[in-house]
């Protein structure tokens, strides 16, 4: 009887130990692809990230060398375009949700914002194609920027809303008690106080859209040359990586890896710096 009990205890302990090991293994397993992606991107890309990569236009098929300068600039242009529309629109939506966020309309709006974050990005591309490419019969930077803006809006809106909800109400009340109209309280006190957080949110949204490929495939399309016109197709880093990766040429594969390294570094730097930015105010508080 006693032995029976101790045997059962032993079995329970064994299961406990085994399950702990299994869980730890799961954590290790999930990190393998991350490490592998990092290792390969660095290993294959580092030798090709050189001066030419940042300054040269892509070379035509058959010639080796060349770079992704126009694609890099294109991505910057597209992201700036997206920010121009997406940031004010997203912040305004977030302010509405946080400051006027009671009632049916606001709840419906919150639902819409949530749904927008989950619309597949390729569908966003389809939508901008139908409204900005079809009527003009031309792929354009404008359409590409619009796609990215649509992806940015819900991200920025949710961050803004969450940040503004953290602002204690007595701050609003203090402003109102001084006789400041509500819109000034919202803009100059509530929003301004959360500025660093909102900038962090915008940076995260930028990190997200800078790597988006699917919505650019048939909106911004691609371009082998410099492009500064809104109504012309424009090259971008993710599209260039995609085209080079599926091509049969060794030299293009090499450049695809270099592009991936630059893109990953950009995204990681943005993510890491937002993390540091977010941590600081908390530790001083």
């Amino acid at each position: 009887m006693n032995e029976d009990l101790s045997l059962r205890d032993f079995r329970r302990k064994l299961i406990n130990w085994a399950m702990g090991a299994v869980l730890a293994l799961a954590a290790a397993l999930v990190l393998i692809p991350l490490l592998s992606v990092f290792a390969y991107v660095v290993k294959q890309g580092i030798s090709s990230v050189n001066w030419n990569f940042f300054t040269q236009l892509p070379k035509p098929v058959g010639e080796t060398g060349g770079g992704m300068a126009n694609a890099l600039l294109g991505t910057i242009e597209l992201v700036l375009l997206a920010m121009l529309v997406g940031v004010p629109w997203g912040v305004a939506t977030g302010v509405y949700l946080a400051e006027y966020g009671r009632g049916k309309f606001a709840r419906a709006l919150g639902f819409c914002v949530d749904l927008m974050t989950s619309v597949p990005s390729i569908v966003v591309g389809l939508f901008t194609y139908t409204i900005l490419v079809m009527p003009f019969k031309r792929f354009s930077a404008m359409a590409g920027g619009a796609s990215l803006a649509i992806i940015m809006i819900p991200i920025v809106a949710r961050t803004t809303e969450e940040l503004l909800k953290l602002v204690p109400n007595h701050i609003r009340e203090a402003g109102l008690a001084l006789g400041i109209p509500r819109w000034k309280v919202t803009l100059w006190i509530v929003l301004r106080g959360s500025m660093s957080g909102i900038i962090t949110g915008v940076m995260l949204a930028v990190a997200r859209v800078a790597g988006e490929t699917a919505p650019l495939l048939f909106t911004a399309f691609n371009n082998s040359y410099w492009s500064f016109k809104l109504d012309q197709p424009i090259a971008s880093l993710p599209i260039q990586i995609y085209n080079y990766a599926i091509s049969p040429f060794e030299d293009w594969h090499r450049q695809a890896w270099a592009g991936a390294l630059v893109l990953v570094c950009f995204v990681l730097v943005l993510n890491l710096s937002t993390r540091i930015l977010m941590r600081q105010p908390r530790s001083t508080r």
Partner: protein
Amino acid sequence: MELPQTLSMSAVSSTLGIFERKKKRDVHLGDRIFFWVLRLLAIGVMLLLLGITLNLLRVSFPIFSKFGLSYFVTNTWNPVTEKFGAGAFIYGTVVSSLIALVISVPISIGVSVFLTELAPRRLAEAVGFLVEMLAAIPSVVYGLWGIFVLAPWLRTTLQPALASTFGFLPLFQGPPYGIGMLTAGIILAIMISPTISAICREVFKAISLQQREAALALGATRWETISLAVLKSSASGIFGAVILGLGRALGETMAVTMVIGNRADISASLFAPGQTMASVIANEYAEATSDMHLAALSAVGLALFLVSFLINSSARFLVWRATRKSKGARA
């Protein structure tokens, strides 16, 4: 946390109420303009969603008037003769997402249990951060890695091994190309595990400490505590997390397009190339010239949009209920 906020909210709303009533007599025009500017922009966001639906409907209309809803169940795809049926893409999306879930769900749940229940805080923070980084890597980079690292490994190592052990199943027969449905499923599994594990962690954190302590106090081991107090009571939240992961897998485009092989075929073997709803759009839309071809692809996009709409709203409801209920119980 909830209670004081609602209290002060009501305080401020009554203050504002007085304020707003006064506003109507006074000249607080700025407030009104500000409110309406915000509201118009907010309405704009809602119109965007409506616009997506209506525009896709408009563009894909020819396909529905010609083939009706049977478009989604027939399997022919010939842009030249304009014979279209999206069956193979729906099959591809379902199968690749299922592979992703089968691989990712146990691992993601395991990771989140490990991080919330077992790991020391420092380790949990570090691993949690790395898992988040997994979500930050752009899809096209996963695709690149998939083509040049994952696919060759599958071709030379995993697929032959699977074929020799489970080769009697039709799932694992046929030549190991490296590129195909299984590869797409594995890439998707990697890409959705941050989503699933992040939400699982939130759900687990919402369970009160007392519940765990109660189990421990009754003499349960760590694992018994986890399975009794944590996993059992968060089943619906975990389910929501899985569905959200599924929603991400369905819409994921670039990485899948790069490794799935892009052939509109239905094949029992997981080694065979396939095509998903998202990948066919990515592949063919820019080159589609005929209106019918555009319509066919847009119809696929519309279906993708509606399915992800349904999946995400139901999942959000589940997660919301799971995290809310336990918060209420704690207070």
